[in-house]
């Protein structure tokens, strides 16, 4: 008896939905083993990491706050993923978006008006898109891999942030801390929009998921993205221009990362050295775990946000180090990537080979 892989004619829809769920479960089991191995109370650590944030009503707001940027960025990335364009530098576009919005905030400190917040949002999205345009032009005109170029730009954006908050935009009343001045009331959306208790960022994420759902499933643009990703040659014969898709998906994912940056800035109310939190990287996991589908991405964003919040809980309750949440996110990504095999292949137990082998021996 041996295991045999058999290529499916079409990716299995059932497995496409089932494997992310299985991956999360597998990681919980693995987590118990790892924590036990490190000398912590395994089951309790995993409980705190994955379940406490869900069961404790007071943690819901934290989860929603963390999920918002992850979902917003990941929605954009899900478009580029489907076109097989790897925008690894969303973190940079997220940071640049926040810097642009902080720039608007800096120059509107002494004025009020309903137009300030829309201007911040616009500036952030444009900055994110412009930053993502660099890898786009490098890829389409010079054939430079967007993977490396977008990533290099993350490090450039980190230095730009550091310069702005220690130099020109440093808070004059900030006791010499490297940070910008606090946003004014006219620059922040109320934390309790419409009396719902839901952070404004999550409402934006929800709305964006809806829009992306329509784009992906109901428009020619959505179809052409998938066509380019899955069968580039055929798509080109069909009249789709791959350069345009590269531009469009990179700019949209950049704009979404910038948008997330603006809402995170409003959430934190100022830029400081702690601002870059790796959401841009975690969002890549979110988009893959969510199978690049808007609804999947929304759920996956909540799951990853739970591990962030749960990581803090586990740190205080079971005293596991702060880094565990990151480690679990990586393991989750490994699991989801490995389980792709089940989507594309069917695993068959084969007895034939054995019989043939026995016969040849005899």
């Amino acid at each position: 008896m041996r295991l045999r892989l058999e290529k499916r004619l079409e990716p299995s829809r059932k497995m496409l939905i089932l494997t992310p769920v299985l991956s999360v479960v597998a990681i919980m089991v693995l987590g118990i083993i790892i924590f036990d191995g490190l000398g912590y109370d395994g089951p309790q650590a995993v409980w705190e990491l994955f379940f406490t944030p869900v069961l404790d009503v007071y943690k819901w707001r934290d989860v929603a706050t963390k999920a918002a940027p992850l979902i917003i960025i990941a929605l954009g990335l899900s478009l580029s993923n489907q076109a097989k364009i790897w925008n690894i530098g969303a973190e940079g576009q997220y940071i640049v978006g926040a810097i642009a919005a902080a720039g608007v905030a800096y120059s509107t400190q002494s004025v009020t008006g309903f137009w300030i917040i829309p201007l911040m949002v616009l500036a952030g999205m444009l900055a994110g898109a412009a930053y993502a345009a660099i890898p786009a032009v490098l890829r389409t005109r010079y054939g430079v891999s967007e993977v490396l170029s977008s990533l290099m730009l993350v490090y450039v954006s980190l230095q730009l942030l550091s310069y702005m908050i220690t130099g020109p935009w440093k808070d004059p009343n900030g006791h010499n801390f490297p940070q910008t001045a606090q946003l004014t009331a006219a620059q922040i959306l109320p934390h309790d929009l419409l009396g719902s208790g839901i952070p404004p960022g999550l409402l934006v994420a929800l709305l964006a998921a809806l829009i992306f759902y329509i784009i992906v499933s109901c428009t020619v643009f959505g179809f052409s993205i998938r066509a380019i990703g899955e069968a580039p040659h055929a798509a080109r014969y069909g009249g789709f221009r791959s350069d345009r898709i590269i531009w469009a998906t990179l700019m949209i994912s950049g704009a979404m990362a910038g948008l997330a940056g603006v809402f995170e800035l409003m959430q934190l109310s100022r830029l400081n050295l702690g601002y870059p939190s790796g959401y841009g990287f975690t969002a890549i996991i979110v988009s893959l775990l969510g199978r690049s589908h808007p609804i999947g991405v929304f759920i996956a964003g909540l799951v990853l946000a739970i591990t962030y919040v749960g990581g803090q809980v586990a740190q205080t309750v079971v005293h596991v180090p702060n880094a565990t949440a990151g480690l679990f996110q990586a393991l989750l990504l490994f699991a989801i990537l490995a389980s792709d095999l089940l989507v594309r292949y069917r695993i068959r137990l084969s007895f034939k080979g054995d019989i043939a082998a026995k016969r040849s021996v005899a």
Partner: protein
Amino acid sequence: MTITFILDALITVIGITTPILLAATGELIVEKSGVINLGVEGMMLVGAIAGFAVTFETGNPWLGILIAMVSGAVAASIFGVMVLSLGANQVATGLALTIFGIGLSSLIGSNYVGIAIDPLDSPFPDTLALDTFWRIVFGHSPFVYFAVFLVLATGFFLNKTRAGLVLRAVGENDFSAHSIGYPVIRIRYLAIAFGGAAAGIAGADFSLVISPLWAEQMTAGRGWIALALVVFAGWRAGRLLAGSYFFGVLMALELYAKASGFAILPSQFWAAMPYLIAVIVLALLSSRDGKGGKAPACLGKPFIPNG
């Protein structure tokens, strides 16, 4: 500007270039076999903490380097299983390896924050490196000599040996190599493990010599520079050696901008410079060489033999 200053600067450049040279040499072999492993940064971090922890616990830096090398190779093998045996996407898996390396090294390293060790010294007797000039020849850590040896040996291996030819064949046309009987998957496993081992040693260079302590994400993106360097070098060992010292100069500028008053521009500009230049150089090179340069033809494509 005195001659001593230039010589001192040269010593700095050689020191900070070494880890990216080591990691890039490993990645060169990986990419020549037709696989792109974006997990260099993660493998370096795993090597850095493994090397530091073992050196601190046992007092033996050589054992530390060995364990760093092995841990880098083990981390790389996770990537190998994923992309070679399970056919997972190489870009996403490499990224996962980097996130994994950051998480794992921070987890292990949380016990070692704030501890300093003595940096690893030159393998040559002190009497050989009395003044600055002779320090350039004899005054470096063992990593420096090993890195130069490794890149030269790699160039020789790729271009002058039969095994190197087979490796290149696997990277250029995996199906042909498979059909004439070469074990494509096994060769790629070995290449990936080699790349991991080299990245692990590069990490140990960080935590044992460059800044002999442990700090979270202490490699600070140098792994990505190493990846760009392989493209920059057009997948050739000789250009890799030259290119890495070029980037070493750029990275040294940041150190000098911070330390001295010569900074006309803010220090952040100098810190961003290697990354900016890397992006610009990638664009210039590919426009000169035509589309894609001389990348191995199978780079990044999964190989799943029929049957």
